[in-house]
């Protein structure tokens, strides 16, 4: 399975860099009946999809392939975009045709190693649950037939894997939400969800990095900024990272938010 190396600073703080510096290494083994599907995504991108594989395993394979492709990219590739069960490669059709691009990719898929070490990060994200910060916590509890405290306990006891970053800049789709908390999105999306809001949408949980319209059930909020244009990379979370939520009190939220500024 996987092995962790966790480095915890002596006095754990939730500053951006402290959160960033914890990492894990895990080994992904190529599935025996591996099925990749390659198809065009329009006339200047190509999509490689992992077929018939449950979500967490698909994400691990996507991450493994992404690492392999990214470390040795072809000259005509413009950009690689990893998603839950697929990678898009944008290429320059002035340099290669679709067929050439596809054939090169097939050749590279044949040469994938049987197993590869993947370096991920473990991010402990402080969250203030309920109240003004999590206006939908009671609704989620009611739908799940649990108490609000139980929802918080289950949500923060779980380790989530970042499946992909998408929807809006820096938004992580987190996998591994316990079935008990899988509540559909709101019927009517909010016109504005505050930055840092932690939401549940179907089988996923996620964090809104910026204030945008959104339909997920909001259970809490983190004072940590996930998307910062002045950082390189601008995103705190990357696909394959592990996320663990740490419940904090309202006063701590206010203090951390003040410190972050």
């Amino acid at each position, binding site marked *: 399975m996987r092995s962790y190396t966790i480095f915890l600073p002596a006095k754990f703080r939730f500053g951006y860099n402290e959160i960033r510096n914890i990492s894990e290494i895990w080994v992904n083994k190529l599935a025996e009946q591996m099925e990749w599907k390659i*198809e*065009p*995504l*329009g*006339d*200047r*991108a190509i*999509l490689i*999809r992992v077929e018939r594989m449950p*979500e967490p395993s698909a994400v691990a394979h996507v991450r493994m392939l992404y690492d392999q492709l990214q470390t040795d990219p072809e000259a005509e590739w*413009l*950009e*690689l*975009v*990893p*998603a*839950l*069960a*697929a*990678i*898009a490669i*944008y290429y320059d*059709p*002035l340099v290669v*045709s*679709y*067929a050439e691009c596809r054939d090169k990719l097939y050749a590279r898929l044949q040469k994938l190693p049987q197993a590869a070490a993947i370096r991920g990060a473990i991010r402990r994200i402080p969250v203030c649950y309920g109240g003004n910060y999590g206006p939908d916590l009671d609704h989620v509890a009611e739908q799940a037939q649990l108490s609000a405290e139980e929802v918080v306990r289950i949500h923060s006891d779980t380790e989530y894997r970042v499946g*992909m*970053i*998408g*929807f*809006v*800049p*820096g*938004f992580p*789709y987190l996998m591994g939400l316990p079935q008990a908390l899988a509540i559909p999105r709101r019927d009517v999306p909010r016109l504005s969800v505050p930055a840092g809001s932690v939401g549940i949408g179907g089988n996923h949980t996620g964090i809104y990095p*910026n204030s*945008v319209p959104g339909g997920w059930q909001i259970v809490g909020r983190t004072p940590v900024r996930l*998307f910062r*244009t002045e950082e390189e*990379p*601008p*995103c705190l979370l*990357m*696909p394959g990272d592990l996320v663990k939520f740490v419940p904090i009190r309202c006063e701590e939220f206010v203090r951390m938010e003040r410190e972050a500024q």
Partner: protein
Amino acid sequence: MSGMYVSKPGLWTTVQDKGRWGLQKYGISPGGAADIRSFQLANWLVGNEGSEPALELTLRGPQLVFQQDVWIAISGADMMPTIDGKPVPYYCPVFVPGGAELIFGPARSGCRTYLAVAGGFAVPRVLGGHGAYPAAGLTGLAGRAVIAGDTLTIAALPNRSSAMLRSLAVQMPSQLQTEVETEPKTFVAAKWSVRPSIRFDIPIKSPTDECELVIRIVSGNAFDHLTAESQSRLLEQHFRVLPQSNRMGCRLQGLSLAFKEPQEQVSEPVAVGTIQLPRSGDPIALLADRQTTGGYPCIAHIISADLPSLAQAAPGNRIRFKKVSIEVAQQIYRDQQKELHQMERFIRLKYEIDSSDKH
């Protein structure tokens, strides 16, 4: 004071460049000018490299006061721009004296107009791009469109551009040289312009008139899952562009489309030009500010060569799709790029010849 003052902002006027590429893995879409062809042309015409920040005007243009002498070029949708009541020509370099007010009207044809200035607009570069990107609150104008009272700074001319423009000034009607010295109140346009010979599909009539834009597409992975009736509808009927369309997507309406069976799809990468089919049955063609991933099935993709034309489709315009193979789509794109580069060379040559004439 120097720069350009916005006295009226127009409907949706943003600073754009060629976009931010390489950041989709962080959920940041490339953005950039919706009609990249018109954007580049306007830049080339004022002696710029082609990617300098320019203004993208939407459906109704702004009123702008230049606080310094400037060279401009206008391309794309016809918004009947005037200075002192005199129409300003498209697709050619125009000298505008400081103090002049450039007034755009509503788009008589097309949807988006580009206004480039020699040197480009000086807007902070954030994450490798200058363009307004509201989803992330990026750049200098906090990612928003321009508003009345904004002043946009104009960047200093690079040496090459100023040499080109000097050579153009030499060739300009003698009135320019005399009037420049006596501070002319009005603009002077170059005597030449580029008439795009390539497929520059800008709908030529007003949105209320019946005219049809043919946009070519390649199949998407959900095309085969459409009912036979929907497949033929997609390729035979015309779609109307809905007013809810914006830089994220062009919303289309026709007889609604349906799948043989409900499609379940995890969120996957989507590209500019991807045509998604949500449950409503009305397709959405994704434009520059699209999301990086989407959960709706992709029934088709607009070919790269026709994306600028789609960006010029205004609400009310009619669109018909024509399916081509991916090989054909890429060949059309290569041919079109070749033609665009010939046009770029023509413009550069024009400046050089103009200067050598005088030697």
